[in-house]
């Protein structure tokens, strides 16, 4: 983000993987152009202004807004700048801070920040927090709220699916969504589900084993 040495990005950024089709056509980068204290002197992109001034109120592109987020089954009011990503909202604005979701690339290329939006995996670094109002966000902390591990989490432990573990929450969220759709997912489908996730420690073989083992266990339990 603080790529101060290079010019602002001209091209439009990729959308989150899924889950925000119902939202106005508002990408994070486009929003940035009009948000931000310094950049506020610039022209607010027309696409942004028309559709979203209505959605979020006219006075919200500078300063902060209070929004109610629905995170892990609980509503929480947070005060943040409209440009704040869901990732930074979770990590820096929620109380208590939800730091299980990791920031690695901050631009949609590593998957470490994967959360579920209405049950579908999205990159939280490519999703604006304000865009999730009215939608359900689930983070890694929400998978096992009382501390007991999900089947997939258990299998990650049994198959050593973490080394440094920094990529682990993202993989767990991506594969959880995959197995929720289809507990009988093949290796190919599992790889497809986490093809946007990077692991520098090279733990992928164990992650595949864990995912397949979890799928088998879930099927034995009838898919739950």
């Amino acid at each position: 983000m603080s790529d101060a040495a290079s010019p602002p990005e001209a091209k439009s950024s990729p959308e989150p993987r899924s889950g925000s089709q119902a939202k106005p056509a508002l990408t994070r980068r486009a929003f940035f152009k009009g948000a931000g204290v310094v950049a506020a002197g610039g022209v607010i992109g027309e696409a942004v202004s028309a559709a979203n001034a209505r959605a979020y109120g006219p006075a919200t592109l500078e300063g902060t807004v209070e929004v109610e987020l629905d995170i892990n089954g609980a509503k929480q009011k947070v005060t943040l700048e409209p440009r704040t990503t869901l990732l930074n909202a979770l990590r820096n604005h929620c109380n208590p801070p939800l730091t299980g979701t990791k920031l690695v690339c901050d631009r949609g290329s590593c998957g470490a920040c994967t959360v579920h939006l209405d049950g579908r995996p999205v990159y939280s670094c490519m999703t604006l927090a304000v865009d999730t109002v009215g939608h359900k966000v689930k983070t890694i902390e929400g998978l096992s709220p009382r501390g007991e591990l999900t089947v997939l989490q258990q299998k990650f432990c049994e198959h050593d699916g973490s080394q440094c573990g920094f990529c682990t929450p993202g993989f767990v969220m991506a594969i959880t969504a995959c197995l929720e759709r289809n507990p009988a997912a093949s290796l190919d489908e599992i790889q497809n589900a986490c093809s946007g996730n990077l692991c520098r420690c090279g733990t992928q073989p164990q992650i595949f084993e864990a995912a397949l083992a979890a799928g088998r266990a879930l099927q034995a339990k009838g898919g739950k």
Partner: protein
Amino acid sequence: MALEPLRTQDEKPPRPAAPGKKWIRVTKAVNGIDTEVWEEVSDDTGGPQWGPREQMRLVSRAVPRVDGPDKVTGRAMYSSDMRLPGMVFARVLRSRVPCGTVQLELEAAKAIPGVLAVIALNNGNVDWLGRPIAAVAATTPEIAEDGLRAIVAQYEEQPFAVTPEQAAAENAPKVGSRGNVRTLSKNTDSSEVDDALAKAAKRVQGTWKIPVQHHACLESHGVVVDYRGGDEATVYASTQGTFTIPGDAAGALGLKPNQVTAVVEHMGGGFGSKFQLGIEGDAACRLAKLLARPVHLMLDRATEFHAAGNRSGGEHTLEAGLDEKGQIVAIKGRVTRLGGVGQGSGHPIPYIYGRDAKVFVEDRCIHTHTDSSRAMRGPGHPQASFSMEGLMDECAYASGLDLLEIRRINLPDSRRELYMRQLERCAALIGWDKHAFKNAPDLSKSELKVGIGFAIARWGGGGNGQCKVEVRVAQDGSVEVLSGTQDLGTGTRTYCASIVAEELGLELNQVRPRIGRSTFGSANASGGSTTAPSLSPSVKHAAHNARLALFEKVAPLLGVKPDELEVGLGEIHVAAKPSQKVAWKDACATLGPAGLSAQGEWQAHLASSDVGGAQAAKVQVDTRTGEIKVLEMVAVQNCGLLLNRMSVKSQLQGGMVQALSYGLFEERVIDPDLGLFLNANFEDYKIAGVREIPRMTVEFEDDPRGVIGMAEAAVIPGHSAIANAIRNACGVRIFDMPLTADKVLVGLEALRKKG
């Protein structure tokens, strides 16, 4: 990093060991790890023993890591996850130019609401691309980034050299004051080798090019400094060395080292790049000092690529002279390593093979206006492996010899048996016997072709005596093991607990490991695969001492002498009569309210050194598109006593994935004219993803020796085996990584022209 050229190739210790001593090969930590040396250590074999492996319950078994549940639930606290009252977020501004001076106008940034501090980070001279020049602290990271954008940086740009070609050109802009191209080797007389080459039956040569690779740790470099005024601070650092932090941080905070505590609960990857406080940590401390508030400063991804180290690239021009039997009689080489403003890891050429040949190698370093390279997993060895293993296969094809046979002939006597056993096992695992192209590449016209390649690795992996460990047993029977060491994801925390649990007859979950805090016992930084062989003997010693102390207490209860006792599962009993026993809880109840504390130090006889491994790769090449697909990788590795079969296997496979990624994808690209780093992000700097992972098989050899570090060895041969497999598959030798489809096509075209 001021480092001397490597002397890692000394196969033998300098002299026979003195009575009561033995030699081990150790990596010496010098600001990151670059040098392996022989060290003479005590061979006292008294004291604690690992004991027979077949009787072990936890150590040497496959044990799920104890912090797995924390990692899979997001509860594991990494340094970047620390959130403290009043904490502010900081970001750094990078220099846009590789070389020049910069004047900073900071007022506009300071005026932004929410920006709390803006500081310049150096005196305005810039000598490498991306050097952090200013830092901003603000109430949110978004506002800190506004602050960066509001800093007016006026550059006076000077001519720069960001590529080795630029740096080596005549009248090139100077990088530093030592000369852009420096010859580090002393020997300048190649006449003996020239003679031997002239007389050789065959000569084989090539120039291999090695790109600059990035560590690409997922957690970037940085710290959270908890300083709120006063005379104490805590630094949560993403580091490979807990104890490398307090001294530097104290300097920046104006405190004494013992007033600063470093904490490393979990860290998200280092691979050799994370030692000491660094520019970013220093900036965070200065901001914390200024504001008397906790400061969170983690590098953003682009800055991480620019300013957090890299694996030195280079170029190896090698020529080998062979006799009629395929034995290498002479090797002449010129090794150029890239170090940026630093010197680069030495690339130990010749690598393993060719020990009996006459050797002349010119070792040079080229400096560029880019950040200093740092140690990276197996420093120097993956580079050396790439050219040497390529050279071996070229020698085989030139002589019409089987790819295994050429290795057998040219391995040093002292290692032939080990490596041939491992290579033959790899060959069996990967289906070499059914492979048709053992001594010549497949030059047929078929479209999809499959090749096999081999490569080997060695590493010292010895330990050293820096670790002090404490085991505490409380009156209620609970047990803790404490060490300041850090867990990089290697499973350190887990073996600390399992060694103690094994020694005291407890279950793994009855021992609580507490690590990653500089107030605990000292420990070495994790580099050069030195952690396990340094730490585990100290843990064993502390546990052993705790057991003996407990026996002293329990013996009177059972009416025997302490040395008549032994531990069973959850109990202490008389060795000769196990029914005469005290349950663990009751034994601990004899301790006073203070419980028991036992200390442990390094035990040389519980560690060993020198690991070897072989790997093979099976690759499919599509000759229509050039597409390279790695189908399978196999590895056979020795590594002494395996502390935890599960985590060691993960590390070995992880190394293979990293090597595959190095071979196929990774390359830093800097525009030579603009001086811009073109791929400082994960879209354009590609690392292996889930779709690129081949079928993998790893095996460990039974190895009666003590604990040895092996993580470096894992990453050394994979890319070399893949390059060799491509050549075997289709005849194309790719001399420069990454190994890409376009290079296959160019090579195929060249082969067609040659007929």
